[in-house]
């Protein structure tokens, strides 16, 4: 069991805000940390790894206290990153440029057998003597992942590891990650924006917004079993409302796509150009309703 009760003041685009988490993680699971950019996801990982100092709180990993600081005091306990030895895969991979793939792995731990095993699992055996500069993004990502697993960490932190890759590569690495997790039984915390990735990999999603946990549930509960009866829903903005005879038409921008939706008189009355709306479907016709500001905006993920 990993207990993360941490607090830290952060500078955001809209001034300072407080990152505040109180989360228990089961051992051996994969948990996603999601949320709009600037919500404190990376900082949360860095605090767990010991790379950023929280203002207060407590971090416990399998009964071991890694960090303990009361409000306004110096930390009573603060294990160094070296003592924590979590596996950390950075967003930019952080491979050592002067070491080959194999040397990168062996620098983490001089365990040649483990290196061979991990290189085999991640399909890197052929690339063992190549320098990072000569690797593709997907290959670098796999080296970073393999290196982070060399010391067989109990906890693996992944900071948007797959965001820079194309869909085919992403899907392949997701399968690899699942296989590795099952084989090594490591607890994984992954920062991701990708809802299909959360659905495929994670048994839990912690949703952060401006430093606060706004949802903490399974991906299924979060994305599928929402309280609406809609089968699908998109967020958009009304560009224009038109009436032709008795028919009302709304032109709505959903991302970069423009759609025309037939709406009824009641809907027309309640809407105006510029409104943020949710377009969903119940039976046959799309429905358009105003976006409530207390709803979580999934398009921001």
């Amino acid at each position, binding site marked *: 069991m990993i207990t993360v009760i941490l607090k830290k003041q952060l500078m955001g685009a809209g001034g300072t805000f407080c990152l505040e988490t109180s989360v228990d993680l089961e051992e051996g699971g994969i948990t996603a940390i999601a949320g709009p950019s600037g919500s404190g996801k990376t900082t949360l990982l860095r605090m767990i790894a010991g*790379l950023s100092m929280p203002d207060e709180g407590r971090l416990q990993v399998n009964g071991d206290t890694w960090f303990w600081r009361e409000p306004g005091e110096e930390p009573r306990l603060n294990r160094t990153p070296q003592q924590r*030895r*979590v596996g*950390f895969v950075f967003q930019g991979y952080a491979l*050592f*440029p002067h070491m080959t793939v194999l040397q990168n792995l062996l620098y983490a731990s001089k365990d040649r057998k483990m290196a061979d095993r991990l290189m085999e699992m991640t399909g890197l055996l052929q690339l063992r003597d190549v320098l990072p*500069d000569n690797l593709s993004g997907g290959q670098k990502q796999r080296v970073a992942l393999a290196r982070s697993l*060399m010391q067989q960490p109990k906890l693996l932190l992944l900071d948007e590891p797959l965001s820079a890759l194309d869909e085919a590569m992403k899907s392949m690495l997701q399968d690899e990650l699942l296989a590795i997790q099952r084989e090594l039984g490591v607890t994984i915390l992954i920062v991701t924006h990708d809802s299909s990735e959360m659905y495929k990999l994670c048994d839990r999603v912690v949703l952060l917004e401006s430093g606060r946990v706004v949802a903490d549930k399974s991906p299924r509960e979060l994305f599928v079993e929402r309280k609406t009866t809609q089968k699908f829903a998109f967020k958009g903005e009304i560009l224009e409302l038109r009436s032709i005879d008795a028919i009302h038409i709304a032109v709505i921008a959903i991302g970069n796509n423009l759609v025309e939706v037939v709406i009824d008189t009641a809907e027309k009355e309640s809407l105006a150009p510029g409104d943020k709306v949710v377009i969903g479907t119940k039976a046959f016709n799309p429905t358009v309703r105003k976006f409530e500001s207390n709803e979580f905006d999934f398009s921001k993920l």
Partner: protein
Amino acid sequence: MGSFDVEPFLLSFRLAAVTTLLLFVLSVPLAWMLANWRSPFKPVVETLFSLPIVLPPTVLGFYLLIFMSERSPVGGFLKEGFGIELVFSFQGILVASCVYSLPFMVQPLLSGMEQFPGQLLEAAYALGKSKRDTLFNVVLPNIKPSMLTGLIITFAHTVGEFGVVLMVGGSIQGETRVASIAIYEMVELLDYSTAHLYSFILVAFSFLVLLVVYGVNHRARGGRYS
């Protein structure tokens, strides 16, 4: 044609080689400490270490001369305790050269270390590596151009120094009369042809040294972690 004496050059190069070696060993940990140090006093310390760049060599030489003389506590202690006399000796100009050339070694190393991507350091720390281990296995192998710049500039700067050596060492043949001072003596003796020869050798040497530095940096650029 004047008489060519190789001794001043040998002395210059010996002084430069030993200075460079000593300063390298000293500056690597010093620069690493400075790079990792977060304190409001950091600018003060950096300024102190950089002073020799802007001070007139005679000023630095004057203070070193006072400092090393047997009437000063340090000079007296060295003479009483160890029989070492720094003034007008090779050891003296060696100490003076180290002080004088310190920033030329520390600055390139420090800027190399400060520009080194922090994420690579954090990656090493997360792998359980100590700061020292990270310095030798991760940082230094990736800042070779900075190290080479520091080594070469320090060497060349020491060969080219004049004022400090003259103040502290005078011009004792085979002991402190380095090439730059030999040229000064030739001019005083109106032996222009020898002065020409010596000067030309130093110009050619300086040109070659800088050519190597720029050549290496040019090759290293656009590489590693851009």
